[in-house]
């Protein structure tokens, strides 16, 4: 029989529960001799070969993957620039791994998926509170794709003739690339406005924005870790020209930074995976919130409150006529599978921290960066922060020696930092690596002079 026990390699799928007798009975019921007879595949395109993939027992699998991943050097990372790690409490793992959440599908039958729907409703509500905007969807893939969707939203909701999507010149390359991809089909153009000292050059934006401007994007903190001080002005410029103002941020930063609604943001995007996700090689959770007026043009899924036949509050996916499975090529986005489980984890992480924990964490992101920059600035051959701004989590370090050489030396000492220029490093500190800050400073002292 094909019954493959977990401690063995198995001759078939270890997850197909058929005994030989059952298989025979089923084949008999269907009226064929073997499973091959059920495949209606013309001979020329049939595949009789093998993939040459050896099955592994669970044990072999775990050992093999563990050994392979152990090839990664054990570095303490002071890396950010769009992918951040905060310590995720154990309770988030234990709750989110519950199979009822993990192995559930999209909530097309809300009567038996109230739990996940409510969690997503709470996630949306958290983003509404953090942004001050009325609508948040229940996830995009990541910050970059959320930005792309925001630009396309602008194209749908703005009556201006413009086709220019304005972004800061320091926008992270990967994010800009995704944006370019998203707007290509809509014939929009991505253009940059200059930044100065790590944040927007407002006068330059004022000059750049005109009647061809569809969309103005600013970030806080910026990719250099600088808190943008002129958001309201940028928002005002965009508003005046009829362009859509999109702000990029994240839920931890927004726990203390200016409320996006108060600076005129029409849309807020960003990386909500700063909550709930550990370092995950760039895997993310796209935040997407916007004004209520864009409701019917929002991309992605929305959970709404309703009532069941008993009059009890109940939740359901709603406004699905925006979505691809109903509206097809006229849908507001092609997104189907999103990042629901990561959104669940983000909501759990936020709940574990609580309102005060979130604010404390955000404050730490400011003071940890300030203190570390100060310590590095004390080292001969280093200047930090390079930008005369308030920082959040990360900052740029000027180096006398070539930055790449310093980074290589730091790697030898067990630390990873960004090289962003010939004499520029970038360093990111959060609650997840703060314990190693003193060691990093000591290592810098060794290698920077």
């Amino acid at each position: 029989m094909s019954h493959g026990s977990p401690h063995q390699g198995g001759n078939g799928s270890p997850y197909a529960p058929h005994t030989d007798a059952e298989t025979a009975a089923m084949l008999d019921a269907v009226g064929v001799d073997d499973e091959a007879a059920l495949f209606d595949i013309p001979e020329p395109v049939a595949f009789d070969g093998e993939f040459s993939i050896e099955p592994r027992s669970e044990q072999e699998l775990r050992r093999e993957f563990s050994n392979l991943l152990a090839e990664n050097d054990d570095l303490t990372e002071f890396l950010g620039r769009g992918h951040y790690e905060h310590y995720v409490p154990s309770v988030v793992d234990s709750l989110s791994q519950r199979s009822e959440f993990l192995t559930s599908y999209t909530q097309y039958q809300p009567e038996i998926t109230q739990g996940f729907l409510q969690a997503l409703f709470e996630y949306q509500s958290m983003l509404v509170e953090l942004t001050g905007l009325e609508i948040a969807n229940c996830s995009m893939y990541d910050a970059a794709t959320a930005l792309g969707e925001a630009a396309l939203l602008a194209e749908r909701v703005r009556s201006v003739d413009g086709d220019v999507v304005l972004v800061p010149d320091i926008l992270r390359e990967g994010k800009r690339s995704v944006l370019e991809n998203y707007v290509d089909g809509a014939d929009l153009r991505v253009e940059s406005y200059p930044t100065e000292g790590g944040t927007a050059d407002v006068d330059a934006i004022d000059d750049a924005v005109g009647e061809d401007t569809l969309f103005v994007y600013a970030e806080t903190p910026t990719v250099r870790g600088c808190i943008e001080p002129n958001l309201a002005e940028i928002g005002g410029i965009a508003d005046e020209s009829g362009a859509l103002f999109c702000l990029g941020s994240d839920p931890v930063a927004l726990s203390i930074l200016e409320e996006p609604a108060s600076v005129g943001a029409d849309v807020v995007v960003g990386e909500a995976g700063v909550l709930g996700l550990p370092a995950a090689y760039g895997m993310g959770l796209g935040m997407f919130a916007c004004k209520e007026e864009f409701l019917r043009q929002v991309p992605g899924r929305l959970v709404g409150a309703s009532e069941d036949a008993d009059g009890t509050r109940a939740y359901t996916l709603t406004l699905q006529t925006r979505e691809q499975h109903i509206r097809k090529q006229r849908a507001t986005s092609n997104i189907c599978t999103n990042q629901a489980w990561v959104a669940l984890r983000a909501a759990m992480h936020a709940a574990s921290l609580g309102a005060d924990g979130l604010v404390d964490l955000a404050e730490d992101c400011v003071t940890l960066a300030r203190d570390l920059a100060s310590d590095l600035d004390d080292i001969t051959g280093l200047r930090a922060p390079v930008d005369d701004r308030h920082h959040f989590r990360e900052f740029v370090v000027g180096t006398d020696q070539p930055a790449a050489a310093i980074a290589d030396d730091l790697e030898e000492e067990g630390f990873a930092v960004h090289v962003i220029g010939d004499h520029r490093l970038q360093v990111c500190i959060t609650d997840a690596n703060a314990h190693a800050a003193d060691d990093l400073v000591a290592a810098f002292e060794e290698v920077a002079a």
Partner: protein
Amino acid sequence: ENEPLLTEKRSDTVEPGDALPDDLTRDDLTLPNPEEPEVARHYTRLSQMNWSIESGPYPLGSCTMKYNPPVTEDVAADPNAAVHPDRSADSIQGTLGLLAGLQDYLARIGGMDAVSLQPPAGAAGEFTGIAVARAYHRANGDDRSEVLIPSSAHGTNFATAALAGYDVVELPSAEDGRVDMEALEAAVSEDTAALMLTNPNTVGLFERDIEAVADVVHDAGGLLYYDGANLNALLGRARPGDMGFDIMHYNVHKTFATPHGGGGPGAGPVGVVDELAPYLPNPRVEETDSGYELVESDEAIENVHGFQGNWLVLVKAYAYIARLGDAGLRDASAKAVLNANYLAEQIDLDVPYGPFHHEFAATAGDAAAADVAKRMLDFGVHPPTTNWPEMVPEAMLTEPTEIESKQSLDDLAAAFDAALGSSEEERHEAPSRTTAKRIDQTTAARDPRLSWQSLDEE
């Protein structure tokens, strides 16, 4: 009894401290402020109000809801898997080696020459693939404007083509439920950038004329795109690459059993033939004499993800494939197809099209498919996908996957028949044995309340 919102349990308004000047900070923040035991009880209770693959059959057609082996979770939880995407390639040879291994396995399984793991979901894979086609045509100075899509295709195909800036040309199905060759030939032109097809199609039928289809499209200079949603039907029996497809995506959260997480994350790697490999998004992983490297192509399309996709999902997919191996993968398809055929045999509903593979579209006949589905909830199973594809009236698109036993299928069949045998009134008022009774969709859409803040306004 339903569970209060966290904010209804314990919420606080907190002001920022003095780390920043006031003009950079918000006034205050009002959010739930529970302690850990309260968090644990809240989400435990919510979980108990949710169906999952461990609850019972989940036969959603086109969704391939398989059992998600916990061993793949354990593998992905390895602390060494938690690295930052900007790490130097030298320092993450394990991560890159794993990605290279998955690229290789997927290429073998699909019969493709090169694979990008960047797309974070199936639809993102489609977008990647169509963008690759666009880049290819552009590189040839070929300005094509149309993508052909059968009317029975997944909604994402249409939306993806539009997102990439193409006009959609919808192809009607032939009477046998497959591609209408005449309609195809009529639609194909020098404007045809690509034909998007899934095979078997969305009612489980293999496109027997696939070679002819490929010739028609290729002769017109178009490319053939394979939507991988139904790949679970073919593992080890046929490969898109051998059928003439130039581009394909893989739904690893379907075929390769990564957990669907209530809607995601998934991953939608894209495979292409050699000629198109330079257009895949940057970077890809290659093994060289000195180890694994990230390589870039000048002709690559722009990226489809801010970094390198849904890493944790990719680890699980690779683990699943490695766990099963050739024989396991082939057996998975065999049992998935057997299960669909056996289940169809056991139910009272008609199945208009065949022979089908891993899924079938039964018709509820005079009954409303959506109501039959709601009534099935009362019998303790998850119903199939309803009212889609449109070629079958009152369609109930059913895909049991290989993980259901004969007994489980018999129980599921009994639920189908009991729901169909219920009175129209019973069906219309169903479900009644669930956590929530029938939910009012109309009000939800007419008067959207999308946050707890909007409830306060009541």
